[in-house]
């Protein structure tokens, strides 16, 4: 975390998230191969199994790719808002769209006094940003710019698309593991080859056991990696926001304010928590130091922003206060 320019931080975050995504793909391949080979001792069908699971995963996610925005906005009770209703919000978004050289996204408002924001959209041409009325009321212009910069960066870094990709892989792993475990549970001993596949016996049984192990562990591991990817992309969005605004203080103060606010966002739920700038489910935030969180801990995010300013990290007292407020 010693990087001191947003270029360096961005490069690190991108590298880590790509490596993590690649490892999930590898896990899927390993699982598919183990299952296919364990069942039939035939490498070709092993490949077929993997591709089949992947195809199913893609099919299930296609709907989300094209219509996910609408679902998410409706689930969050976001309503479209016009330029006349919120001139300053539109101005801030316009300014940062110029800095980022992206089209201006659709703008939505969530009527809730808890400050928060999210962005959705598969690419900059199909993007939407939603902010709560609480955010507009409680943040000043510079802090709002930091938040909007973060959300716009999610769009221009194609984070939603990236998350969907990782989601497809994770979903395929879960599907494959589930089907395989059902198969061995109901038809048990199918691993013992009924036809003699000439010399495949010992290795096949071993791979079969491996397949079983992977089928149990892989979904969990994949989920953990997915959460790690989510955290890396959050750091990336923070650094990208600074690249746009050239002012880490705005985002820093905004994060502290949002995390410290006692109000609870009523429309938040497990399915949409990963989209917001700060995890809106308070008890999840408290466990933020763990591997099970979609967002990095606020203290770490603030300290990374402070290092961009060339300022030392938060002193222990302030750190306690901020962490305790979650």
């Amino acid at each position, binding site marked *: 975390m010693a990087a001191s320019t947003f270029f360096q931080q961005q490069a690190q975050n991108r590298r880590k998230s790509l490596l993590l995504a690649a490892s999930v793909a590898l896990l899927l391949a390993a699982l598919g191969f183990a299952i296919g080979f364990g069942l039939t001792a035939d490498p070709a069908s092993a490949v077929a199994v993997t591709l089949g699971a992947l195809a199913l995963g893609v099919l299930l996610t296609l709907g989300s790719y094209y219509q996910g925005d609408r679902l998410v906005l409706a689930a969050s009770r976001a309503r479209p808002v016009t330029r006349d209703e919120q001139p300053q919000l539109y101005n801030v978004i316009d300014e940062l769209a*110029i*800095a980022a*050289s992206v089209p201006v996204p659709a703008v939505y408002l969530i009527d809730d006094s808890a400050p928060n924001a999210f962005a959705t959209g598969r690419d900059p041409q199909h993007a939407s940003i939603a902010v709560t009325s609480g955010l507009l009321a409680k943040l000043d*212009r510079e802090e709002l*710019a930091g938040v909007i910069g973060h959300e716009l960066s999610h769009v221009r870094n194609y984070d939603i698309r990236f998350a969907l990709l990782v989601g497809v892989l994770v979903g395929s792993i879960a599907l494959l593991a589930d089907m395989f475990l059902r198969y061995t549970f109901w038809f048990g001993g199918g691993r013992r080859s009924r036809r003699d596949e000439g010399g495949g016996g010992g290795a096949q049984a071993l791979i079969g056991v491996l397949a079983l192990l992977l089928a149990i562990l892989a979904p969990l591991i994949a989920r953990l990696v997915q959460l790690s990817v989510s955290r890396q992309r959050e750091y990336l969005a923070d650094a990208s926001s600074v690249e*746009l605004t050239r002012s880490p203080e705005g985002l820093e103060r905004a994060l502290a304010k949002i995390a410290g606010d006692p109000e609870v966002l009523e429309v938040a739920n497990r399915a949409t928590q990963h989209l917001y700038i700060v995890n809106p489910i308070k008890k999840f935030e408290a466990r933020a130091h763990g591997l099970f969180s979609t967002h990095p801990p606020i203290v770490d995010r603030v300290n990374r922003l402070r290092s961009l300013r060339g300022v030392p990290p938060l002193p222990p007292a302030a750190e306690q206060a901020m962490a305790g407020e979650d």
Partner: protein
Amino acid sequence: MLIVVIVVLAIVLLLIAVLIGLYNRLVKLRLRVDEAWSQIDVQLKRRHDLIPNLVNAVRGYMDFEQQVLTAVTNARAGAISAGAQGPAAAAAAENALTASLRSLFAVVENYPQLKANENVRALQEELTTTENRISFARQHYNVTTRDYNTATASFPSALIARQFAFSAREFFDAEPGAEAVPEVRLR
């Protein structure tokens, strides 16, 4: 013998493809720079159009500060006419306009009734966003210039750049003496 010919042909074709790719990338980056430059112009013109409204809105309230308003109006006229005289003159005129607007902002701070007025606040927001847009457009121009200049200077695209006359572009520097202007938070 045939194999050798095929391999050599393949290598030559690959090389040509790479060269085309490098050339096209340089073209793309240079066009981005041109577009970013035009964006700055768009925002500067937007500012020209907004100023008469602002001046009229505050004119009634600021009896004693007429010279500030006159300075703004004159600077605006100067900027519009300097637009036709080339980039150096235009830049100088725009900087003068920015300076006069900052003085206006500083003065408005001294009039609490003016600050509280809804219309003035709306217009102040308009000017704030205009200054920010110009600033971000310039920032974006510098970003695209940086990327383009990096491509013209790095190996191997530097070879193509030299061959096809892709020259580096100048960065947009902050106006000289910007530090001397009174501290007014426009953001």
